[in-house]
């Protein structure tokens, strides 16, 4: 099985929206698995953002 970046495949997937059977499985590559249920879906990026 090839490991493909999710975002790239997602773009391909747009044309398959009604294509039929759907089944896939993703692996979290960077974040700690189930790190916390507070900081949701990715830690707060360390870089600053403009206020």
């Amino acid at each position, binding site marked *: *099985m*090839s*490991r*493909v*970046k*999710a*975002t790239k*495949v*997602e773009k391909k*997937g*747009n044309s*398959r*929206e*009604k294509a*039929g*059977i*759907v*089944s*896939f*499985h*993703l*692996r*979290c*590559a*960077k*974040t*700690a*698995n*189930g*790190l*916390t*249920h*507070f*900081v*949701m*879906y*990715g*830690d*707060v*990026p*360390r870089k*600053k*953002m403009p*206020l």
Partner: protein
Amino acid sequence: MLPGPFKRFKPFKSFRQLKRVGFLSGLNGLNGLNKLKHYQSRRETSMRENQRNLSFIDLDAGWKLALDPENLFWSVIPKEDGRFLLPEGLIDLYKREKRHLDEEMYNFRFNEPLNCIYIDPTDRCNANCPYCYIPSDIRKGGTQMTGEQLDTVMQKIIEYFRDFKKKPVIVFHAAEPLLVKDIIFDAIRRYHRRLLFGIQTNALLLQKEDIEFIKKYRVGVGISLDAPEVDINNRSRTTTRRNGNYEKAVQAIEWFNGYEGLNVISTVTKYNVHHLADHVKFLHKKKVPVVLLNPVRVTQKPALRLKPDERVFARSLIDAVETAMRLTRESGRQIVVGNFANVILAIVSPTARRMMCDISPCGGGRTFLTITANGDMLPCGEFTGFREFSGGNIFKTSIEKAMRSKPFRAVRARMVEKIEECNTCDYRHICGSPCPAEMYGRGNMYRKAEFCEFYKEIIKYAFKCLAEGKIKYLLRKDAMDQMVFEYRY
């Protein structure tokens, strides 16, 4: 840690077997689990492997779901020419991935390390929410940590995680942590290089200069706000002066101005259940990136009368998710319904889940724990009213000992396999049957989830969203960037 060396998880054969291995006898969960594993490895290996199969579930007239409930291999199958056809290739994929998915699920359930500590630096609160899981006598007259005590706690946490590769998350949580703002800000200043921080607050004491501080140290912040209208919000988010937190919470959200570490936590009750979509619209306008629309926990008796009708709640949440997707599509700025995103993650990437309530055993006393103001270590803050679940006091003992304590083992031993109805439910590893503290409060930890029907509706809807290719609107953008496909069909 639960349990020792890695072994492949074999599904439990029956409730009776659990009883036979002594798994249902009170607080002997860890011992019972080891016995159970031994038992299974002797008796069940080949038989279960050969017998286990996919379940087929009707999602609606046009879609069928094929699902292995044990490892969450899933596939949504459309009706074609009036029939549902399961191609040979999909079965081959299932056979090929089954072992890997079994292992992944087993490890996630039993070998995930502690990675988050909730600290309640004060028992007191300036609010009086009717559904609070902390009994009112504790909130009125409870203790508060001193700066020195908090520093001792931080040192013990650092010691525990010394050899861990990933930074743990420290969340300052209930009652209202900003009542001791000085000491928690001081702790963040001192330890931000070694730990990640979060604060959960009702915002009543938040000041503009605090926002600068929170952003500077990249602290995750959750603000409690139940509804987009003052009258509805203030019925449940009541302050001790009999007002509510609406004005202060909205002001704080505006001050944060789209900060990536902000989320809004809303407790869904019968008061606000009909207003969830409006709430999403309101928060999207205020640039809030994540909102959690969590069912009220009925751990304490007064909360029970606020429980919304489950089907009404399911319909309303679906409406809120549809609204969030539409707004995200139209504006290009995301708002994610966090608890629904967690259901999506549970299906497509179970180990990437962020909320650890909907996995069995839950994360309480396993991937997170709570330290109360007097130093008691509890599996979860939800147990604050039940001090018999204390795994020891951090000022007298260690986190290691608390993790090995009987109460912690008892919570880890509560698994869907031992809960009637859940043990045969196809969605048992998606909802996880929360929550042990809530069910303990209701008289029996081994009762099924209070919101069982709600979860079933929501999970079916989640599969339909996946079938329709909507995942990109449902998870935070950076969550998708961090994931890779292991397989796809």
